[in-house]
């Protein structure tokens, strides 16, 4: 009996492997991290790892990745397929579930086993509610970044398998990588996040200065990455972007729409700086400063620099 786990991101593969070990230990099963094309040097897990090699590059498209995972799930006694929730992972999970005709649970913060069912705890309705959702096993479940901690160990390698994945229907013509790495935000202990309160792109230097003074990573709300394109998609925090859980989250010029708040709720301390005293961000903040960010941020940066 096995619980198999997968992520195309080496760091998250370790986290989802930890979730897999958690579930597998209850079932008396093995936790097996599936690696496609090659075993990532960065994979950390106290469980096992299985390398799949395909008739072409498996991680190039979601069809091939899903086909490879489905082949493993069908050939072995697999009780659950756990996938780290990235954009690629979300599509792979949906395809695996559809091909295996099993349930798919998303946005998992915690997983448990209850009478042959996998129960997943997740946010609902923009993060205002917490839901417990169950599916009978075997099933597919997605695990959010940061929900589990990767073990500081190298997995035990199983014998590699070859898989045939069939025709490629979606071709990647070009990949344009952005210069920043998303894990900066996902694992950052402190985050400064910029929103619509910034009037122009150049002014983000103020937020960057503050982030530097705090030793924080810089993130943003959706309008800055999507509509305005001032920052990369990897910096976008919220329901449709990255979920973060830093010790300190400082929202600057962010009004605090539900979609943004969904991604920051698990922060230890939330600070809001906004000139609108009615902004909903103050309702979910521990400390708030009502004021113009163009006055407050430089003052705060100076104060931090002086110690």
């Amino acid at each position: 009996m096995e619980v198999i786990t997968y992520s195309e991101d080496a760091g998250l593969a370790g986290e989802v492997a930890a979730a897999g070990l958690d579930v597998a230990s209850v079932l008396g099963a093995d936790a097996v991290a599936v690696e496609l094309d090659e075993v990532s040097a960065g994979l950390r897990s106290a469980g096992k790892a299985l390398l799949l090699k395909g008739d072409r590059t498996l991680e190039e498209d979601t069809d091939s990745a899903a086909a490879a995972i489905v082949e493993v799930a069908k050939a072995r006694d697999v009780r659950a397929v756990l996938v780290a929730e990235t954009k690629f992972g979300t599509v792979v999970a949906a395809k695996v579930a559809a091909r295996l005709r099993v349930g798919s649970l998303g946005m998992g913060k915690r997983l448990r086993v209850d009478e042959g069912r996998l129960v997943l705890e997740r946010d609902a309705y923009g993060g205002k509610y917490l839901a417990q959702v169950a599916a009978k096993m075997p099933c597919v479940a997605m695990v959010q970044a940061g929900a589990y901690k990767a073990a500081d160990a190298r997995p035990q390698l199983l014998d590699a398998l070859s898989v045939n994945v069939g025709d490629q229907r979606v071709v990647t013509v070009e990949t344009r990588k952005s210069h920043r790495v998303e894990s900066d935000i996902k694992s950052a202990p402190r985050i400064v996040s910029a929103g619509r309160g910034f009037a122009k792109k150049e002014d983000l230097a103020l937020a960057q200065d503050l982030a530097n003074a705090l030793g924080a990573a810089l993130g943003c709300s959706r309008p800055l990455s999507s509509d305005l394109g001032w920052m990369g998609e990897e910096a976008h925090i919220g329901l449709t972007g990255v979920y973060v859980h830093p010790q300190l989250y400082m929202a600057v010029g962010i009004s605090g729409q539900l979609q943004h708040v969904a991604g920051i709720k698990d922060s230890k301390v939330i600070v809001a700086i906004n000139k609108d005293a009615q902004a909903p961000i103050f309702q979910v903040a521990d400390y708030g400063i009502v004021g113009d960010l163009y006055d407050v941020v430089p003052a705060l940066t100076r104060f931090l620099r002086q110690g």
Partner: protein
Amino acid sequence: MNIVVLVKSAVDEAELRADTAGHPVLKGAATKMSNFDMNGVEEAVKQKESNGGTVIVVTLGGAEAKKAIKEAMAMGGTRAVHVLAEPPDAPDSLGTAYFLAKAIKRLGEVDLVVCSEGASDTYQGQVGAMVAEFLDMPFLAYAKKVETEAGRIKCEQGFEGGVRVLEAKLPAVVSVVSEANVPRYPTLLQVMVAGRKAIEDITMASLKGDDYPETGMEVLDITLQSANRKRVLLDGSPEEASRKLVEALRREGVL
């Protein structure tokens, strides 16, 4: 070009209230077309305007979903198909995709199926990819730019590491994100005309076959999460407020 757009009637989470036990009061709760779906409808209508053809709005939901259908029709839908699913019998994402795909198959030749990246209330992001699987079509996800030409589709996909340019043959399923377009606001006249356009109702029973996937999915509980934040406002000049904030953050041990 025959285009299908998938929309979902979602609970308006900003209006959702909890009962005294902290459970959401879903019965009679305000609903609307999931806001991400507005980008899906806009993309479908845009593609129709440049390629000609029809836009068929397809949804699965209870009686309240008629409102979402009319919103989509006002934006430019040609006609609509409503798979009726009242709450106790409402299927999970795989079941939803199964019924939507069955309904789409009954429409004859379809060149493009458009959906959004996820629903505003659940945000599972599963149904589009699953519909593609049931229809055996390629799936292009998270498109911020969509081009169709000579039986092919080309998309720019936004992902955590940057942008991928994807290409596939039509028919295909594409999910769009909000950068893809700016949804139009229908005029009053379009809203009135939309109210008179035909909506075909289909029951789940008429679509359900022996191949229906029983996943045993069940929502065990949904309860309000307490925010539990201190909500302390720090006043004074920017310098004074900064000093107070730094002191507070030192006490919290987060600096």
